[in-house]
């Protein structure tokens, strides 16, 4: 994993507005029986940006990630991920595209019969067949990124909830994906562990400039991400300098009744006049 050596002021950057979006949803609808979960969802995620997705339980937030990954298909609409229309692709072609995407599932979804080392190395092992020195180096590097190098030979059942999430992040970032999808990465965790996870996500955003969609219930996590940046010298997340405009590539998307109610940055969210949004963020 390459780590740029840019100074603090230059760590954060505007998303690449000129390049095509990392993800585009166009009028996507999905129903399970009579239950219409998504009803014409449209948005796009610019390259390099992290978008936090909110909504009440059952509003279809996690489905957006599975749709983007091609794990499920919409009833109608179009989803373009990294320039490819996933709604038209075969499962075989999707496997290739998924090689450019990392995903962290809600409950980590680590393979419980494999060790941490094997879990993190899984994707590389599938590609190369054998566990060689290069894979070992990259596994250690990914685990060092989440500060869990000492857990190499442990099994998921021997880890705490927070450690499992961090291993899941290591597994997702090991092949330096162009796009990351986080499904409630801090759900059910204590505030200190949540902060550690958020710091890792900010690190991934600011250091590796990876585009990301993050589903979360915790508004404070997204606000932390919007008001902080990663300081590589100090190796920790720091608040944005006061009085200094430093635009963080971070946006917010709010789902309500299967539709996008809000899609914009923190300032727009804070100044929204919509009653539901004001109640949601209060």
């Amino acid at each position: 994993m390459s780590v740029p050596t840019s100074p603090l002021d230059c760590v954060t950057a505007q998303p690449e507005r000129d390049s095509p979006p990392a993800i585009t949803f166009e009028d996507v609808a999905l129903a399970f029986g009579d239950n219409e979960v998504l009803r014409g969802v449209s948005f796009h995620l610019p390259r390099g940006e992290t978008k936090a997705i909110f909504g009440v339980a059952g509003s279809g937030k996690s489905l957006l990630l599975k749709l983007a990954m091609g794990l499920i298909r919409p009833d109608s609409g179009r989803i373009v991920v990294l320039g490819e229309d996933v709604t038209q692709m075969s499962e075989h072609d999707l496997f290739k595209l998924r090689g450019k995407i990392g995903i962290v599932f809600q409950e980590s979804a680590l393979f419980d019969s494999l060790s941490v080392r094997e879990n993190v190395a899984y994707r590389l092992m599938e590609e190369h067949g054998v566990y060689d020195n290069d894979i070992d180096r990259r596994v250690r590097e990914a685990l060092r990124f989440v500060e869990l190098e000492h857990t190499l030979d442990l099994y998921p059942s021997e880890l705490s909830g927070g450690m499992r999430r961090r291993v899941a992040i290591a597994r997702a970032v090991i092949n330096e994906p162009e796009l990351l999808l986080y499904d409630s990465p801090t759900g059910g965790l204590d505030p200190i562990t949540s902060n550690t996870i958020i710091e890792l996500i900010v690190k991934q955003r600011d250091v590796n400039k990876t585009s990301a969609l993050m589903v979360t219930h915790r508004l404070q996590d997204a606000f932390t991400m919007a008001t902080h940046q990663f300081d590589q010298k100090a190796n920790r997340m720091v608040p944005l300098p006061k009085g200094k405009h430093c635009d963080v590539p971070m946006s917010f998307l709010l789902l309500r009744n299967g539709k996008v109610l809000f899609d914009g940055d923190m300032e727009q969210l804070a100044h929204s006049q919509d009653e539901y949004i004001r109640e949601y963020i209060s």
Partner: protein
Amino acid sequence: MELISPSDLAKTKVQTVQDYVLFSWQAVSNLFLKPIYFIDMLLQADTIGVGSLPIVVLTGFFTGAVLALQASNTLERFGSITLVGQLVSTSMVRELGPVLTSLMVAGRNSSGMASELGSMIVTEQIDAMRALGTDPMKKLVTPRIVATVFMLFFLTIISDLVGLVGGLAIAKLLLQLDARQYWYNAWETLVFQDVFMGLIKPVIFGFIIATIGCFYGMNARGGTQGVGRATTQAMVAASVLILAMDLIVTRFLMATLAYH
């Protein structure tokens, strides 16, 4: 409790059968598509084959023994007790060996596959596998089918042999028959049709055990309760299908192999 109309119920059942056929077809066609997971096949062969050996040996031995005991009672009335070897041999090789071995393996492995894959489904491990670029059908299902079919074939041969030993134990120890005569009768009575019938069945039953177990596992829904339901359904469905297929295959082979 919600009542379902008969037509809806019939549609659901037909849909399930259709899904099962497509699932099985996909699993088999994966044998001819790369990547092929040989290591996983070997691991499954160890779990399914070697792991099932103790129960198969015990089942075979006691079945052969009780068969000899029951047969002796009837044969004695006709003064033909020396034919115990023949009866144990043909019954074990043609019918009881394959069927009972398959039922035991179904009880142990069909339910095991359903619970293992079902747990992976409800904990999103299958989704994670797909997200990491691996086809779960190729990685999880096809190796289990190959391993079950291959190992059940050999487990049945072992079960047949151990069943004959069980019959011998009863013939020698309780019926005071000559061991050589028992073996001679048991061996001489077998013809090609018997052996063929006895060895084609485990191939079919092995396929049923693995596909049913994997099918119910991969379609498990509803958390731990759903996994439990899938496990039970897999075992019941596999057992019933084995018995039903046994009748069909036996009738078919008797007709085609020109049995008298």
